[in-house]
């Protein structure tokens, strides 16, 4: 086979590139632009389809490019049964979603932006599932959280949408950090940074003392992303997003990223007690909680959202169950769920779009007006309900094969599965039948069949559920078997077919369906019961999230008040007190005080004169009657120091010192006039003494530090290096300048950037003061003003 790496790379970036074109395409062609935009995921889908024969033959495909070779980072991908199935789902359903969005968002002023976000998400999700390197996985994982945030908050003028977007970002973002920590653990424990190598490390992870820590961190990532109890609350809230987003991100793809991660890790981390306890427990709780919460809803989308949560729970439960058929069941259910749930969400959107409401109690009798939608809904519901001929049936049979064993644990989880599946059955048909059957109910809009753009998606996905069930041999050969083998980490053969075969699983299926039909017929009573129950329970994690967020805000406000009081005096005092402490405490604590310096043997007259000059400058500062004099007197001292530099041969330093001293006196004087301070110092004696103590302490600290430094043996290595090579390598005789512009040029580049930024900041501060002239002020209010 020819080298496909460049083509695969292109396909991975195609959604991102197309996303850039989306706004322009919609501006140019209106909602019809989505026909063109859908080509991108379609091409990627076709490209990944070409891998099917290879993967179904049991091979894996890896490829990639070096990214940062010095850090051993690569942009590499890893295709096996698991990632290829996901890639096909993402690009395939993605194609239909882009088309569907074209119809759903028709005429929306921001349709281009919406399609752009959807395509960005698609690129991120595709990257997530094919990533080989841990870092790439993490980056794409976070990208899906960010694009999901953008899509949930798409309707950003509504507060509910903003809150839900933020909530989803916080929950999945925190999970992402947990994932990062977990991946670092994996890397430390095994020494590999690539999934394709990780799956071959056998028992290293299971035997590691850090196994549990790594597992918990990774579960933190997976459970938040896949909305497992108790992190489930963001998912129903995410239904604030437009329906195509719910169908795509929050049922078919993104929420399955957590399940993907668990399935990926199953071969190396599965089959341990912790794994087999945590996953089924949380999965089972999520399954039951999700279905019960779904029963209570009347909004079509929310009903579906909670069953999605329940389905994710079922998948997690199966992934951790580790009996024969459990992995196969998870794989089959995952594929079936993506198809029927995507279809049902799109149906819900279609009904909403055409009839103007998605409240199931306000809908009815639409079958004549929307026949295609009804057919799609029915097909999807039959698959979701797990009735024969459909892919969902195969999945359910396989689930019961996996669960139905004699021991207590199996019996408990079988019961959980029966209750969960039965309730999901009821909801599937509530969504698919209630709006369409019965007497015609007056709806806000006069309903009629939606445009082809909108029914192609649900019709195709729902039919695939039937095709996959009938042609189960083909589906198993190309999808289920390779994927199950990848998840199990050993060859597995899926061979369940749609012909009912007598036995325990079929019996359990019949019980499930019977239970489901019963609940469906009594749906209103069941709903009332759930509403009463939930009212009795009161607040849930959703409310808790609000408490946590508002608590954090209050805490940060309190902390900010303490550390940013807004008074210049306090800032300066804190800075110099800390400076004095840093200088003095360590030298006293560790006995690093300098020796008493010896008195210099002979000092020339001019040297005495310069020292005298510095001392005079110092006294002039202290004795100055007003501030301006003090500033100028400080200059005297600075000049004296510059002369000392000059005498000791540091011409460049002296030169700069002269200039800096001059300019700082000028600038300080200008600042002082601008601040309109009273010319004299009016500090009360106590304050004066305190400030004097701080300055003496700082001065003492610097003196001691300098004396100690000069008493230590001086390392001349660098001096010699620069003296030797300055002329030879850098062609300059002035060593100081050569260091600045050549040897350490990059440092200088950074420094001049800082100089410029400082200039800009100072300029901004001055501007603020100009626009906001203060009346005659004292020191306190001026300090306040400076903060702004």
């Amino acid at each position, binding site marked *: 086979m020819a080298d496909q790496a460049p083509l695969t790379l292109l396909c991975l970036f195609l959604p991102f590139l197309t996303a850039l074109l989306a706004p322009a395409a919609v501006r140019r062609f209106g909602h019809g632009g989505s026909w063109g935009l859908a080509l991108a995921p379609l091409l990627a889908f076709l490209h990944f389809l070409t891998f099917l024969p290879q993967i179904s033959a049991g091979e894996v495909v890896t490829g990639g490019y070096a990214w940062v070779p010095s850090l051993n980072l690569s942009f590499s991908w890893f295709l096996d049964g698991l990632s290829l199935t996901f890639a096909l789902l993402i690009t395939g359903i993605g194609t239909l979603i882009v088309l569907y969005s074209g119809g759903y968002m028709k005429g929306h002023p921001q349709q281009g932006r919406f399609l752009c976000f959807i395509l960005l998400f698609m690129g991120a999700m595709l990257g997530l599932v094919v990533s080989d390197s841990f870092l790439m996985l993490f980056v794409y994982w976070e990208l899906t959280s960010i694009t999901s945030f953008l899509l949930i908050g798409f309707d950003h003028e509504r507060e509910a949408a903003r809150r839900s977007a933020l909530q989803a970002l916080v929950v999945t973002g925190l999970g992402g950090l947990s994932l990062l920590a977990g991946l670092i653990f994996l890397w430390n424990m095994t020494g590999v940074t690539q999934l394709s190598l990780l799956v071959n490390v056998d028992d290293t992870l299971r035997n590691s003392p850090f196994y549990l820590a790594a597992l918990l961190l990774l579960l933190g990532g997976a459970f938040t992303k896949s909305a497992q109890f108790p992190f489930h609350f963001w998912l129903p809230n995410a239904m604030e997003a437009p329906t195509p987003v719910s169908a795509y991100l929050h049922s078919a793809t993104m929420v399955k990223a957590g399940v993907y991660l668990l399935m990926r890790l199953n071969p190396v981390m599965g089959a341990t007690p912790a794994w087999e306890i945590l996953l089924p427990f949380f999965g089972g709780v999520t399954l039951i909680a999700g279905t019960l919460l779904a029963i209570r809803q009347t909004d079509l989308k929310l009903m579906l959202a909670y069953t999605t949560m329940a389905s994710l729970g079922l998948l997690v439960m199966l992934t951790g169950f580790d009996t024969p058929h459990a992995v196969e069941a998870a794989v089959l259910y995952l594929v079936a769920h993506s198809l029927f749930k995507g279809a049902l969400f799109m149906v819900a959107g279609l009904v909403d779009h055409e009839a103007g409401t998605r409240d199931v109690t306000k809908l009815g009798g639409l079958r004549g007006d929307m026949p295609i939608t009804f057919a799609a809904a029915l097909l999807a519901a039959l698959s979701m309900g797990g009735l024969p001929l459909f892919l969902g049936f195969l999945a359910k049979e396989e689930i019961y094969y996996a669960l139905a064993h004699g021991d207590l644990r199996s019996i408990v989880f079988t019961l959980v599965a029966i209750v969960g599946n039965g309730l999901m059955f009821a909801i599937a048909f509530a969504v698919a039948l209630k709006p369409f059957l019965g007497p015609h109910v007056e709806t806000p809009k006069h309903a009629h069949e939606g445009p082809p753009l909108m029914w192609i998606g649900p019709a195709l996905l729902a039919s695939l559920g039937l095709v996959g069930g009938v042609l189960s041999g083909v589906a198993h050969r190309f999808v289920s078997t390779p994927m199950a083998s990848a998840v199990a980490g050993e060859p597995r053969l899926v061979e369940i077919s749609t012909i009912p075969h007598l036995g325990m699983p079929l019996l359990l299926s019949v019980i499930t369906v019977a239970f489901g039909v019963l609940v469906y017929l009594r749906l209103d009573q069941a709903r009332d019961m759930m509403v009463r129950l939930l009212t009795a329970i009161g607040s849930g994690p959703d409310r808790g999230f609000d408490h946590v967020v508002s608590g954090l805000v209050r805490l940060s406000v309190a902390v900010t008040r303490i550390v940013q009081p807004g008074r210049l005096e306090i800032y300066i005092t804190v800075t110099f007190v800390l400076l004095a402490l840093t200088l003095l405490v360590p030298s006293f604590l560790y006995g690093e005080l300098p020796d008493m310096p010896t008195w210099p043997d002979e000092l020339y007259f001019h040297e005495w004169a310069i020292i005298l000059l510095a001392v005079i400058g110092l006294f002039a500062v202290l004795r100055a009657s007003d501030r301006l004099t003090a500033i100028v007197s400080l200059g005297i001292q600075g000049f004296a120091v510059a002369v000392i530099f000059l005498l000791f041969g540091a011409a460049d330093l002296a030169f700069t010192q002269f200039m800096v001293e001059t300019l700082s006196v000028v600038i300080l004087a200008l600042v002082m006039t601008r601040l309109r301070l009273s010319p004299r110092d009016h500090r009360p004696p106590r304050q004066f003494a305190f400030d004097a103590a701080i300055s003496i302490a700082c001065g003492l600290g610097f003196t001691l530090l300098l004396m100690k430094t000069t008493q230590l043996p001086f390392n001349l290595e660098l001096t010699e290096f620069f003296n030797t090579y300055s002329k030879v390598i850098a062609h300059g005789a002035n060593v100081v300048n050569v260091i*600045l512009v050549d040897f350490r040029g990059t440092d200088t580049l950074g420094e001049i950037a800082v100089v*410029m930024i400082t200039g800009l900041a100072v300029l901004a501060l001055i501007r603020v003061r100009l626009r906001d002239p203060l009346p005659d002020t004292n020191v306190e209010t001026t300090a306040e003003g400076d903060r702004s």
Partner: protein
Amino acid sequence: MNTLILRTVAPPITALMLVFSVFVLLRGHNEPGGGFIGGLIAASALAIYGIAYGVSAVRHAIRFHPMAIAGFGLLVGALSGVVSIFAGVPFMTGLWIYPSIFGVEVPLATVISFDIGVYFVVLGSVGSIALALEERETD
């Protein structure tokens, strides 16, 4: 502060300081001097002129906003570093050429253009602070 004496000597002093600043900048590689000190001298020159004739006169004379000058300097500095990448050596490696101008061999280098960048950044940043602070005197 616009006394007659200052107003009389300010133009020649400013001119001298500006010329001197360029001199200091160019000789910096072998003698005491360089872009930083040159920029400080030039900024002081602007400040003196501003004190004598008002800030608007300075702003008019230098045509560009001092921050634009600083930005130009930063760009020159960064580009001087980038040149070396095209020569296949690490960022900020000094490159030298020795063209002959009117029969005199003149050594030119990216380190010199870098130093010129430093000069403009310091001139622009310090100058704009000084001018902005002086501005109130005139209004």
